[in-house]
């Protein structure tokens, strides 16, 4: 199909065509991916080779200061007068050595590393009424991963230390002076400013985000659950068993529940995103309509749901809808219903209520966003449309909606993924209820994957399945992101529309 043919198509057909093209391109893309992967692996090994060559040649060509730096990190720098850098290198090496070869052998990095393949073999026992603690699988796994991090950091630093020596030698040979420590410090505020800015955040993210995520990914391959709880019990590697359990096709066990919860999560995310989107846009158009007074007042009233902390408003609203809550009490007082509506006890009602209340929470956000964008739509577009005799709905359909969709495309994507992980609304409103005997793992009919994960972690301490669910959430989100990135034009290139 040529470009001209494509342009002739109508909107939905264009989308269909693009979707088709995307799926058609998948085999080709995977082929490319693997070809690229081969190249990348080759380049990677070449890189490692070059790395070794550099380390070796530096040793061969370097003077005694450089050579001693291979053993004592930072020696070369100190000997050449750059004591600031040298002391830092030395300090790092000391810390690393102390961590790896801690005097108390059962707390050293080496110990954790050695046990990592089995996650501990010595069981906790009771001897003469005294508990003798054996290995703690949890700490072995956690500190094992930490040790691996540490070793990687050490190798990198060690390499930097050697490279430093080589560069210093070259600079000295060419007759220039080396940077003094004072200059180093001032450069941290200037040329190297990004290091100063990013050092602390990177450390924080590494320890408090990356480390836990890697740890939990590894937990997905163990049998860490309520019956294998350290320090009393050991847990160990089980391979892909947990994934098999959750993705199994039988309807009885976790497999059926997982499919059910996943389906509801996607339905929920769809409604929560698009219902809020269109309703919010309509409200924004209404408020911004010419001739409507008290614009600020309407906006402020709606914004109340954002301003008031969610745990107050959502908890209160959830109790309003309870069996003996206000809504039912009023409806029965006015004689509209005979028996209370089962807002939270009937699966369909519960799902409906959750989506309804989410509209209450979500419209204001969209209203705020849409207000800003509506103001930006060039007025002459409407002017010319009016001259051509378009009515309000046509103008909405042909001007407002396409403009909004284009500009907020990325927002729709983030909002969809955000709704898949929308813990607060579900947890505070229904808590995943109503529960059912048909669902395993304590799941209820309004549980999202994320609230199910929370229940698994906190109530059931079934960490292995929680970890698997977490990974699957990641997979779902990654797939959605990949597809939409390929379909929505404004995500790819931001400047397109201007």
């Amino acid at each position, binding site marked *: 199909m040529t470009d001209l043919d494509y342009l002739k198509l109508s909107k939905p057909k264009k989308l269909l065509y693009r979707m088709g093209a995307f799926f058609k391109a998948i085999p080709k893309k995977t082929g490319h991916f693997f070809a690229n992967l081969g190249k990348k692996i080759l380049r990677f090994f070449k890189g490692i080779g070059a790395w070794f060559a550099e380390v070796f040649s530096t040793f061969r060509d370097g003077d005694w200061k450089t050579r001693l730096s291979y053993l004592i990190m930072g020696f070369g720098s100190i000997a050449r007068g750059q004591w600031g850098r040298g002391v830092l290198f030395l300090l790092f090496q000391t810390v690393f050595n102390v961590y790896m070869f801690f005097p108390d052998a059962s707390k050293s990095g080496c110990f954790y590393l050695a046990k990592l393949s089995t996650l501990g073999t010595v069981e906790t026992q009771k001897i003469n009424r005294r508990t003798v603690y054996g290995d703690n699988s949890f700490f072995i796994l956690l500190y094992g991963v930490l040790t691996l991090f540490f070793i990687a950091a050490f190798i990198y630093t060690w390499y930097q230390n050697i490279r430093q020596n080589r560069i210093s030698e070259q600079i000295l040979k060419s007759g220039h002076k080396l940077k003094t420590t004072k200059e180093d410090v001032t450069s941290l505020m*200037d040329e190297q*400013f*990004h290091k*100063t*800015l*990013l050092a*602390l*955040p990177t450390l*924080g*993210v590494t*320890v*408090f*985000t990356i480390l*836990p*995520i890697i*740890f*939990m990914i590894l937990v997905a391959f163990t049998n860490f659950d309520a019956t294998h709880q350290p320090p009393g019990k050991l847990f160990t590697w089980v391979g892909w068993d947990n994934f098999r359990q959750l993705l199994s096709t039988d309807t009885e066990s976790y497999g059926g529940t997982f499919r059910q919860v996943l389906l509801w999560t996607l339905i929920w995310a769809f409604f929560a995103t698009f219902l809020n989107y269109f309703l919010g846009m309509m*409200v924004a158009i209404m*408020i911004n309509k010419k*001739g*409507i007074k008290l614009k600020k007042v*309407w906006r402020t*009233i709606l914004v*109340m749901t954002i*301003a*008031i*902390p*969610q*745990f*107050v*408003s959502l*908890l*209160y609203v959830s*109790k*309003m809808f309870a069996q003996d809550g*206000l809504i039912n*009490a*009023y409806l029965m007082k006015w004689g509209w219903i005979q028996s209370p509506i089962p807002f939270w006890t009937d699966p369909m009602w519960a799902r409906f209520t959750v989506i309804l209340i989410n509209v*209450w929470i979500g419209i204001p956000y969209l209203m*705020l*966003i849409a*207000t*800003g964008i509506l103001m930006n739509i060039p007025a002459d577009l409407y002017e010319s449309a009016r001259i051509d005799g378009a009515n309000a709905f046509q103008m909405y359909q042909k001007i407002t909606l396409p403009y909004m969709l284009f500009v907020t495309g*990325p*927002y729709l*994507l983030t909002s969809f993924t955000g709704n898949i*992980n929308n*813990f*607060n609304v579900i947890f505070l409103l229904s808590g995943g209820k109503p529960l059912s005997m048909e669902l395993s793992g304590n799941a209820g009919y309004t549980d999202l994957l*994320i609230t199910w994960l*929370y229940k698994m972690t*906190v109530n059931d301490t079934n*960490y292995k399945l*929680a*970890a698997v669910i977490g990974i699957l*959430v*990641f997979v779902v989100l*990654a797939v959605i992101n990949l597809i939409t990135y390929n379909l929505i034009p404004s*995500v790819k290139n*931001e400047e397109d529309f201007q």
Partner: protein
Amino acid sequence: MSTMKKVPEADVMTDNKSGVAPESKIEKTRSKSGHERRVNTAVYVVLIVMSVVWLTPFVFLVCQSFRSFLNEGGGMVPYVIPQKGFSLDNYKALFIKGFTAKKYLVNDLTLQEFFDTLDGDETLARDNAEAAALLRSAAEGRDPAKDTISSVMSAVQKDESVGQDKRDAASAFMRTVFSAARNQRFENDFRQDFNGRFIPWWTKTFVIGACFSLAVVALCILLKRLNENSDQLYRFRLLIMLGILIAAYLCYVLTIKQQMGYAPAAAGDYVQLGIIFLLFALFSLLAVNSFLKREGKLLQQIPGYPPETAWDKIKKAPVLFLEFLAMFVVMTCALIPTENSDYVGWYGNTLTIALFTAVIQTVIVLSVSYALSRLRFKGRKLIMNVVLVLGLFPGFLSMITLYFLLKSLGMTGPGAVPGLILIYCASSGMGYYISKGFFDTIPKSLDESARIDGATRFQVFLKIIMPLAKPIVIYTVLMAFMGPWGDYVFASYVAFGNVPTYNVAVGLYQWVNVADYQGYFTLFCAGGVLVAVPITALFLALQKYYVEGVTGGAVKG
């Protein structure tokens, strides 16, 4: 502007020229305005209905918070349709130390308690003298400390010699006394806790803070008068202020805390107070210095401006005084002792967490987004991609790992407050998108010209970009400050059953979802209102910045 003004003029001109056109046009606009009016009315109706729907829950929330949890009788169902009646009991209950709803759910009393209540309330005894006498006579010969009034009552009910109406009156009277006992017990506890614990603590801190601020201001003015050399003066002032600080701090720790009947000051108190006083000193120093220095210099530069007199300086003092006072009150709010009632403790925890998080998180987010937006370095794309991928993992996945990491640092259970600050701040660098988008819009030529003039990158960041980035700074602070107020998940997991270190969300959630939540439901409403009012006020005041941040983030993705 000029073109816009011209358009209507042109319209009028053409109308005047063609003689027939105006009439038809007027007709058209008339019918159009009629249509418009109808549409507008419909829009107004929709908006009014929406406003009602949006506000109803909050109105009910406030209504229910003013319905006493005590006066609903023993059943305590504040859960149904609000009725008339106004009481502050729920708010009072928030300040009672060791409050449990059960304590005030009086369904039975020992004889001792019963008659004590009766003696404590004269009108009650006078109005029901007959029934009181009947019960008194029936209770004679019983053990006042052990026997309960209901056993006496059942004996009275079986007694056929007394008339039926009298028996009914007696049992109604008993219930009235119960409710009186409830109120008496509640009022006593409240008075004891609020007047005996909260008010002295509050007033004394207030007085000390005020005196302290006054002293600083007076000293500054005095020294400024004596010595015009500001550099020396500055150093001297610093020393004196440090002296005052240490004195005030020791005074506070050693005397006030003990007077209030708390345990003797522990090492932790010294550290905690030390930090707060240091912060306070910093703020006062900055304020005094910048105020006096800049104001004085600027005014002196104006030719013909009369030299500053002592009276001028004194006139400025109230401003400084108020500034200090506000600062001090904020600081002490963060210090609300956990020996107070549960709720006040939770409030204090949340405030502390929110204040610290707001400051630290803003610094982190701004530095990350500035680095990623403005500086070009190796690994920049890599960092952005890694953050993108990490963001796809659900946050709770790492919860247990974080718990054990914090536990190994001693920051769980009793130490949950610093632990939560650490958690909220550690990974906050990943939320850089919105502020990066903002920095991207600031023209690069600004940086470059400053760099040519010899500014370092740090100076560019601090002196050129930061002043321009005020909206996004405010947005970041607002978001960081509001976040901890609503967090239930991490707060409950890290505090794990340690009631004094809960935050408000966890505490109130427990109140709503405990087995007898009906006893606590109005308390939840009151607590929720106290949380919502300042947060909502703050949000509405800074709404402009929020809208800017949100729309900017949504459009750029």
